[in-house]
């Protein structure tokens, strides 16, 4: 009994110590961690008289350099402009297209659009796997010349997709583009 206990103690001591030195030899591969950084939100408008990409981009992440934000220019009095959103992580090489992940997990995502000042209306042109709004694809209809902003939010794990003004969950991105209808 006594010798057994002694041997057990020595074994544990040895095992702990060696695991410790094993850990010390571990050279911390950079691939061990992976972060999701959304650096770029792109709005691609295609319609009568327009085929253009507009970007909200902050390549160096929070702080540092200010984000670069395009003004979305939409031709006036035009209907049926289709918009497709692309979300990228351009801090990595090659860049990661997060849009594909969002499409795959459509139930857990929702894009919302809030327009201030500009004479443009936006309707959803896609649904998630349950037939609820998703918002990667939308249809834009513009009226007369005006300026304003459009705020696009991507919600992750929304609790209520029927309430577009407060769907719950948390914001993966929350960007505001200046808009010009001309």
């Amino acid at each position, binding site marked *: 009994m006594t010798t057994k206990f002694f041997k057990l103690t020595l074994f544990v001591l040895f095992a702990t110590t060696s695991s*410790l030195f094993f850990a010390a030899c571990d050279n*911390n591969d950079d691939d061990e961690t992976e972060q999701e950084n959304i650096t770029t939100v792109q709005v691609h408008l295609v319609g009568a008289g327009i085929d253009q990409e507009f970007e909200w981009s902050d390549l160096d992440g929070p702080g*540092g350099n200010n984000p670069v934000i395009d003004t979305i220019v939409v031709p006036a009095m035009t209907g049926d402009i289709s918009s497709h959103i692309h979300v990228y992580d351009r*801090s990595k090489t090659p860049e990661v297209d997060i849009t594909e992940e*969002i499409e795959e997990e459509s139930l857990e995502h929702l894009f919302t659009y809030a327009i201030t000042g500009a004479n443009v209306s936006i309707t959803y042109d896609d649904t998630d796997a349950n037939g609820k709004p998703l918002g990667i694809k939308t249809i834009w209809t513009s009226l007369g010349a005006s300026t304003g902003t459009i705020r696009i*939010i991507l919600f992750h794990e929304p609790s209520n997709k029927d309430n577009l003004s407060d769907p719950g969950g948390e914001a993966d991105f929350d960007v505001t583009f200046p808009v010009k209808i001309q």
Partner: protein
Amino acid sequence: MSERFWLLLVVAMLGLAPEIFAQDCHVALRGHLYDADTREPLAYATVRVAETGRGATADENGYYVLPDHCEGASYTVSVTHVACEHFTQVVKLVENQAFDFWLSHVAHLQEITVLERAVAPTPVQASQEVSSSDLAAGQGVNITETMKKLPGVTSINTGATIAKPVIQGLHSNRIALINNQVALESQQWGSEHAPEIDPFTAGKITVLKGAAGVRYGVGAMGGAILIEPDPLRTEAGWGGWVHGGMFSNGRSGVAAGAVDWKKAEGTLGLRFQGTIKRSGNLRTPDYWLGNTGAGEANLSVMAGWQSGRWRHDLSASTFNQKIGILRAAHQGNLTDLMLAIESDTPRNNPNWFTYDIERPYQTVNHQTFQYRTSLRLNEKWKFSGQYSFQYNERKEFDVVRKTSAAADKPQLLFDLWTNQVNLALEHFPIRHWQGGVGVQGLQQKNLVGKGGLIPDYDTYGGAIWAMERWRKYPNPWEFEVGARYDFRHSNVLTTGNLVDVDTTLVFGNVSGTAGAVYHFSKALSLSLHSGYAWRPPHVNELFARGVHFGSGTYEQGRSDLRPEKGWNTNLTLLHQTRRVEASLSVYHNRIRDFIYLEPQEELVLTVRGAFPAYFFEQDNVVLQGLDGGLSVVLAGQLSAEGRVSLLRAYRVTRDSGENSENKTWLPLMPSDRFQYGLKWRFGRDEQTTNTHESFVRLLASTTMEQTRLPQEGLLKPAPETFTVLSLEVVHTFAVGEKTLEIGLNVQNLSNQRYREYLNFFRFYADEPGINAGLRAKLTF
């Protein structure tokens, strides 16, 4: 009590006075008498010295004193206890040395062992020990919880699962945690990084308040917490304990145990200790706190032996923890945060019970290896050496898209390797001075995964210290003086992250300490202690850049921060009698270039929206306050206790002219708090050993609303004053030759709904409601 008591061992340092010193015949022979089996003081035993014919009776704490004996002389000391045969032992008297006698129930004569104790006597500095009953009650929770019953000690929390100790307003990098004589090295800069210490390994916890830099280095400018294991077994054979506990809130279970063994011949002693813990979602009075489960598994081994004049100690431990983070506290951006703050109940909250832990969570793994040795060089000098190695790995798992590359990986990873060497040369009293000199070396490597919050670094550090203390018993004065020089050299490098850093940092400075104690009587003493300590800025404070999602703030370091330097003075009055125990401490801590997060006026625009910016700034600050504790025996078995902790912490701004000192309060400082309660002891024979403690204790803690805070950056008003009640019933009794302790502990007895200012998750959810814990500990 009819068994015979035998003298088992005499503690510490039977140094012989060299003949070169004139013999001093006004030295007191004094010390404590203990029951070796229970480690409790042995009251009312008689101590007699054959040569002088003088005798004394030990008091209720087992303390005895026989004045006017000659240093270096041999005395035959006999100890007699009620209804026991007397026992004698020859001792050689050394000044300032307490002769502690450990008496055993064991009927056969044991080999007498002399144990070396660290030379350094207890510091003059204000210190407080966690009582053994509080230690036992808090062990199933976490190490911080066990210390909160001490005046001046509070905690800073991140939800209900992560707690860090705060001493007189200071925490994290300003507090040193010394676990089994090794300074804990982990990612302590983060306020959501809890200390990696298993409370079940602690036999004793002492909190040193105020600058303790001379003893414990640059990490101890605000104080130090010493966690010491029980000493290894000194009687041949087996011993140990098993502990089982359950808590209603979180439906948690904890099991811990230790086995001790001492070789029959020789000096080898071993201990094997382990703890496992599991808990599920906690509950407030109204709802579950989704994703607040936790799990823990720890193991440690200790070995100690003597070979000739050498003493060797070896220990290794592993600490492994997984902690769920309140799901509702994970905020995407400021809009989410404001919605969460406005909501009375947590949003996105999985409002049910489960043991499962989902993202966000963190895992921590901490390993320590230590070798310690000491050598008696001669009668006056002792050498000691220590080498320790620590490895700390922390992983943080955030909420991510399930199909992304991040889904099976942590989002943050920190690896920290630390090697430390301490060498000391200490001496026993020479012309009433006792102390030592030492050197310390430290090497540290920190690696952070891609995209981490802080850069990688390599640090080399060194220190040299000297400390002396004067005591000439029974002269009422005691003095202490010490000095230390520390330096740190760090290479800081990060590539591939969003910001590149490549720089070398060098910091060096002195620390100092001086103190005096005046003993009015054995029961009453007044001590004044003043310490100067410093701390180099941490890489986090220099280079951090990013959004802290829990608090919804953008934080940015400043690479030109200077070291903090603190001058801490405290005055402590201690009164201890059989009926009354009182302590009162006032302190003043002036820190130059105190580093803290200052809210900025602008917002930082990120892809998740705009966040309020906080930059690390420094300023001269003052932290001053009062800690008091009182315990009075009201009648017979009934006693009352009360404690108070007051703190005023403000910035001293000078730009307003030379004659006015504008005060602006510092953020995140503990508010005033009071504790008061009643304790009724039962089943205890006052006239014999106080081996077994059985009591009922009702305690109330009132935490005042923090009204002294800066208005800028305060997203939600500080919570209102609240009072929580706790009830504790402990009964200890003998089961054959074993001791069984049963404890019932009810926290938040009235199921009070409250939030705590020093909890970062006060934005989102209430604190946990009623929690009843039942524990049993069998000691064999």
